[in-house]
């Protein structure tokens, strides 16, 4: 699915109730989600069929991924349930190297015969494409892990919670929004369980049980006489957590300016929907921003998307090398800048890291989709560009011999390739909270939540909006603003980073649907940060009359 299609969908306006087709499998009952699927011994036997078939057909390497993808989605608007869907998708994807060239095939016929056929097809594709191959595949070595198991450390499995409880929670959130002045509210719960089994000719048999959850809503307030409307989206984050994310624990809340609440690893949807309705109404009367330079104080639930676009994407090695030139584009962070060893990506306090192990994040897994144990590594240290994101067939191109472990495929049906790991901003070392970020700002804007975002194909020039904007004057919050967007250049922006809250303020932002590749695949990724301040950023006024 194109990311844009999803954004429109996740905007939760009206209508659009079809679940993005890539997430779909066959519809099943909620009880059927609890069916355990194949046991691990059977999965190993079936995977070995693929590996042995590939080897005897002349492949020098093969991996097999048996995937069972279970999803549950609940959609409501105001006091109505619009849709509840439970889906299951099951199959196997086989990837091989023959004559130095990749080949891939997949099938939902997970039997010995079906697997043999698909494997032969993968080998045939590799051999056919090898005739026009100019850059033979070179794989970085990987340790054999034997038979291992990894599971997202969840406390409550969504599959064990009755649908009625989920529906009731969303309808309560809707009711809270309507009671507090909303004219419309749409809410949804997305819950995902990827049961993935990976085996390769290098001796790894990896069974993983990955869980993700995303509660979200959109509240709209309308002033009919003026013909105006304003929306406020949820300040939740999609997380690599179980249903315990919906507990709304007070201990996981952070009190922000102007009564805003930030959520760490537990989300209070009723509280957030109540606030959203009040804020949407307030927005209808808020003042329009004066364009100019402002100090920006950015909440983690906003800054995450800026990190995603201006750090995560430009440091994907395949983009840097030109493999994505026809779709997402290339990158300003070219190899010569990296090789210089002194390219100042940001100010001295900027430390950005990639991490596939972060608990609660969307990208967290034990092993990536080519059997590499996941890890954490530096991208930018003390403001200087240090590394990229690369997988087994790429790291040799930057003189390294260990994959970073960030290979992923959206389903058994798609070939795995390099995907963005969680990319996060390290908290500041000095002890600062959100209020310390604001108190010495003369002229600034505090921004929370994701909004409109756009960046050029080499990731220089960007423009970002947000969910809520508050004016800061002489160290104090003055009130809400409308029509705010900031425009900057990636390097200039990160070099204007002047102050970062400490680790007590650290929170995770995420996206379920990062799009890349042709045909396009989606991937879920998180970005952590603490509230951060940037100096003298260009703010434009986006108000228009039509």
């Amino acid at each position: 699915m194109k990311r844009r299609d999803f954004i429109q969908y996740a905007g939760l306006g009206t209508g659009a109730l079809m679940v993005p087709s890539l997430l779909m499998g066959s519809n099943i009952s909620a009880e059927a989600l609890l069916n355990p699927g194949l046991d691990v011994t059977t999965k190993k036997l079936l995977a070995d069929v693929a590996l042995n078939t590939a080897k005897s057909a002349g492949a020098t390497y093969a991996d097999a991924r048996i995937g069972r993808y279970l999803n549950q989605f609940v959609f409501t608007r105001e006091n109505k349930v619009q849709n509840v869907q439970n889906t299951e998708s099951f199959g196997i994807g086989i990837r091989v190297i023959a004559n130095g060239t990749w080949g891939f095939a997949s099938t939902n016929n997970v039997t010995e015969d079906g697997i043999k056929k698909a494997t032969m097809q993968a080998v045939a594709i590799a051999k056919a494409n090898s005739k026009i191959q100019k850059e033979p595949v070179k794989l970085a070595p990987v340790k054999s892990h034997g038979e291992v198991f990894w599971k997202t450390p969840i406390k409550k499995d969504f599959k064990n919670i009755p649908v009625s409880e989920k529906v009731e929670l969303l309808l309560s959130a809707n009711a809270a929004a309507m009671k507090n002045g909303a004219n419309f509210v749409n809410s949804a719960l997305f819950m995902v369980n990827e049961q993935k089994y990976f085996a390769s000719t290098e001796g790894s048999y990896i069974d993983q049980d990955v869980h993700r959850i995303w509660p979200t809503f959109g509240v709209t307030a309308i002033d009919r006489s003026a013909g105006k409307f304003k929306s406020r989206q949820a300040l939740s984050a999609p997380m690599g957590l179980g249903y315990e994310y919906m507990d709304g624990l007070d201990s996981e809340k952070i009190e922000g300016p102007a009564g805003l609440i930030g959520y760490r690893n537990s989300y209070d949807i009723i509280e957030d929907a109540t606030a959203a309705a009040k804020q949407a109404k307030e927005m209808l009367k808020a003042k329009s921003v004066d364009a100019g330079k402002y100090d920006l104080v950015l909440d983690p639930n906003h800054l995450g998307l800026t990190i995603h676009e201006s750090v995560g994407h430009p440091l994907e090695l395949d983009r840097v090398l030109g493999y994505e030139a026809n779709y997402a584009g290339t990158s300003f962070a070219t190899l010569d800048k990296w090789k210089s060893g002194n390219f100042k990506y940001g100010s001295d306090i900027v430390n950005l890291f990639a991490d596939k192990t972060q608990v609660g994040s969307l990208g967290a897994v034990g092993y990536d989709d080519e059997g590499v144990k996941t890890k954490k590594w530096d991208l930018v240290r003390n403001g200087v560009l240090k590394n990229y994101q690369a997988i087994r067939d790429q790291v040799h191109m930057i003189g390294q011999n260990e994959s970073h472990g960030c290979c992923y495929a959206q389903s058994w049906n798609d070939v795995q390739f390099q995907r963005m790991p969680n990319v996060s901003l390290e908290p500041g070392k000095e002890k600062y909270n959100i209020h310390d970020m604001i108190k010495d700002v003369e002229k600034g804007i505090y921004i929370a939540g994701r909004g409109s975002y756009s960046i050029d194909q080499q990731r220089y020039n960007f423009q970002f909006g947000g969910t809520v904007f508050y004016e800061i004057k002489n160290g104090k919050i003055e009130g809400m603003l409308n029509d705010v967007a900031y425009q900057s250049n990636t390097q200039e922006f990160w070099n204007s980073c002047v102050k970062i809250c400490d680790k007590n303020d650290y929170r995770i932002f995420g996206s379920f649907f990062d799009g890349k590749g042709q045909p396009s695949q989606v991937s879920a990724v998180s970005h952590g940060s603490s509230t951060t301040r940037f100096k003298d950023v260009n703010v434009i006024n986006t108000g228009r009359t039509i």
Partner: protein
Amino acid sequence: MAIYTKEEARRIMEKALSFSTADACEINISGSESGNIRYARNTVSTSGHRSNQTLVVQSNFGLKSGVATIDEFDDASLKKVVERAEELAKLAPENPEFMPPLGPQTYDESITYSKATANITPGYRAEVAASSINPAASKDVTSAGFLNDSAGFSAMLNSNGLFAYNKSTNVNFTVTMRTNDGTGSGWVTRDFNDVSKFDAVEASNVAIDKAIMSREAKAIEPGKYTVILEPAASIGLLQNMFGSIDARTADEGRSFMSKEGGGNKLGEKIIDERINLWSDPLHPDVPTPTWNGQGQPLKKMKWIENGVVKNLAYSRYWAKQKGVDPVPFPSNAIMDGGNASLEDLIKSTRKGILVTRLWYIRGVDPQTLLYTGLTRDGTFYIENGRIKHPVKNFRFNESPIIMLNNLEELGQQVRINGNLIPYMKVRDFTFTSLSDAV
């Protein structure tokens, strides 16, 4: 082969329907074969083939409905999928907006299928890649492209007697050409139902020429400029406007089509009177199926006439609430053009910017349909009727409504993403900053 004939599709769906015990049952079946080739760095990177077939059953008991899908069509599987849809329907909460399936309808015969496209081979795809890679390599240019072709069918049948069938083919091509010194980039897109209309060599050369022409672009001040938008540039903004013509959202007060004081802008002039926008599933250059997923017939329809809103889309539920006939969403967009070629439009421009495409378009304000994004892959400064030099890319902040009120001239139409859109010249298009991206 996953492409069934009308009779085969009907037989499978009738079989499935025979197992239904629900108040009503609607069945959709579809299948497709698609192939692709992807290349970058002047070599092939991946290629693939995909075959899909799905049957979807929607059963309802009163206002409760359930949906189940399956990809196997033997009798036992068909029975199982109908039973599962009925089980899910019984468990589902009531949806007060549920609309029962339509009765029998009459549809026009579509013209969406081309044998030539259905017969595309892996060899043809490799030739297309070579048509980009070879001329690029000889001109110190690097190509990265993607070709995807598909042939498929869809059909539906319901317990109220409705039956519909369609077969269609599509081919989509894009290529980006970058000069090896990294200072120039060009791009082209082509899409057709019938691949025999596609010339990969011609298309690739357009992108190569743009890449070479756009080398060493000069920076000029952002601001308001007269622009000539190629259809690939305007389509992103126009599609967003076209996608927002839902009557319900307008009536609810949360659309650019909502009126001050309540209601919608039906019958109001919102853009330049030279703008006529319509849809037509039988247009020979941009054909689409003649029915939609709910079985509603699609006909030629005016949406904007002389700048005035003529129709808004009404879902069956909303039409019932408002006491009007349902109006299905359009399946394509056709904007009337003029006779001027791109060259003519450039000749008549004293000072302006030629834009190849707009990229990373994102909504900024749904109230005014303000969008932001950037120019990409060929942006040129025009002075006294001639292209003077390439310019650095700009970020824009513009609303298609404002843009279409600032219309200077419409040129010839071009097919783009299944729509027919003219070249257009527009004054005061708002560029808000410069980008260093090539």
